[in-house]
């Protein structure tokens, strides 16, 4: 049983990280961004390509950190993938969403993001093929951490890095000018303009940060599961569930929602059976929304 809790936490951390990006874009641009799942996939594939390149450049013997399945090539690849996926977000905004924001309605943006999502997904199939892939073919031995609980060192790394990123984002939002401006724009874009905030610049930063977090979530999935073209899109429903569960626009809500959805999916396997794991997450979502319609951390306003 505890084993499923551990697995659920790892899945939940990945969902939570993806959900933070989704909720940031939602609160600042005010639309449900369906391309977020595909930014996760692109992030994972950027890492895949870069690991290949860097390992080839570094010689045959791939570097590894102690018990982890990866070394410097993967770390460098993730850092670069964060930048590339952030740039992809900027490109999407500049080429598509910026124009629609000026002339279209929210529903135009949502449908456009659906179309862009389809295009991004198929570009991956076109470039990499439909088959799943892995960052490392080595099999990692799970180590017992508690009686009856075994986790791989990679899973521990995923949980730790998630905690670090959430803390960093908290500091960004509360201690920096950009963070305060992002919170200001999320609440009242007109007032933000009046006090001198360049709203378009904040929007661009939001795409960069959202895309960067998506790339890390993609790398986590690649590390703990596998890389495939549908990976991000399949994660989209749990992402939206986590976002809504935590309260749309709330960063802490998104991570809490992610952990709850991850745990619910994982724990449903021994309790109900693996066929229903996605359905269980939605039952939890429904139950919580009935009690708290604005989500766990949502505003009552």
């Amino acid at each position: 049983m505890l084993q499923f809790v551990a697995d659920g936490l790892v899945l939940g951390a990945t969902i939570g990280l993806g959900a933070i990006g989704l909720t940031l874009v939602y609160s600042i641009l005010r639309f449900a961004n369906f391309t977020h799942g595909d930014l996760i996939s692109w992030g994972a594939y950027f890492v895949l390509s870069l690991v290949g390149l860097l390992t080839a450049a570094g010689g045959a013997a791939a570097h590894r950190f102690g018990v982890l399945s990866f070394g410097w090539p993967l770390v460098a690849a993730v850092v670069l993938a964060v930048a590339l996926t952030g740039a992809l977000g900027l490109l999407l905004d500049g080429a598509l969403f910026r124009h629609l924001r000026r002339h279209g309605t929210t529903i135009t943006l949502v449908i456009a993001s659906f179309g862009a999502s389809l295009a991004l997904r198929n570009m991956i199939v076109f470039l990499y093929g439909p088959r799943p892939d892995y960052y490392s073919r080595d099999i990692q031995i799970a180590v017992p951490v508690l009686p009856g609980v075994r986790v791989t060192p990679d899973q521990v790394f995923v949980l730790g890095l998630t905690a670090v990123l959430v803390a960093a984002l908290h500091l960004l939002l509360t201690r920096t000018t950009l963070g305060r401006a992002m919170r200001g724009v999320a609440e009242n874009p007109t007032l933000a303009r009046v006090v001198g905030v360049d709203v378009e610049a904040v929007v661009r930063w939001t795409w960069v940060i959202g895309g960067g977090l998506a790339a890390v979530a993609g790398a986590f999935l690649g590390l703990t599961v596998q890389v495939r073209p549908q990976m991000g899109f399949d994660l989209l429903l749990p992402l939206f569930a986590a976002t809504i569960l935590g309260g749309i626009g709330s960063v802490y809500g998104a991570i809490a929602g992610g952990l709850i959805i991850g745990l619910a999916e994982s724990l449903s396997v021994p309790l109900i059976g693996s066929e229903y794991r996605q359905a269980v997450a939605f039952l939890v979502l429904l139950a919580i929304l009935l009690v708290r319609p604005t989500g766990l951390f949502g505003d009552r306003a």
Partner: protein
Amino acid sequence: MRDLVAGYEPGLPILRGASIDVPAGTIVTILGPNGAGKSTLIKAIVGLVPVDSGSATLGGRDIRRVPAHRMVPAHRMVRHGLAYVPQTENVFTRLTVHENLELAGFFLKRRRRRRIDAVYALFPDLARQRRLAAGRLSGGQRQMLATARALIVEPRLLILDEPSAGLSPKLVSTVFAKLTEVRAAGVTILMVEQNVKAALAISDYAYVMVEGRERVGAPAAELAARTDLGDLFLGAMPAGGTA
């Protein structure tokens, strides 16, 4: 220096060629019936409403370039020395009092802390509540915070849209007394008001706006003494001379 917002002459149906002057160091109030275009006028000045034609200058510098697509965007107006306090939703409720002030002064860099301290000195109540989320302040305190936030950037012209809206008479006098303190500190104020008596009491000069243009402009004391003010609001042509 002569702070001036003038020659504003759009083809917009709401504003039909309104012109006003705001001399430096004064409080100027725009009065008028609902729908006269008072709020539209100040929103046009700060760049929230597109301007079709006309001009606005602040201290001799053109701050509203026409045609509309060449306008100075709203977020750059603050750097032109122009601060605006909207009538409603004029504070960030999810940010603390202190964060509201920090956000307003973000481009001041090193000067910001000094400016925030100076504004706290003018609004000691806010200094005591700096850690409180602005959404938990009362209506009067929010108006104070909105005004304080606008003052962070040391504006040459402070523009307020109905600062007394929704406040009790006692709070109105508190807010207006604070505005005279602000004027004494050297800030020029332009405001739109419905609360005619209280506003004229602290103003130096006032305009009555009807149907998108200024109908009467006179020193506030003179306007307060006039008996045909109600008729003016209803659209009658002024009996006396206009300024």
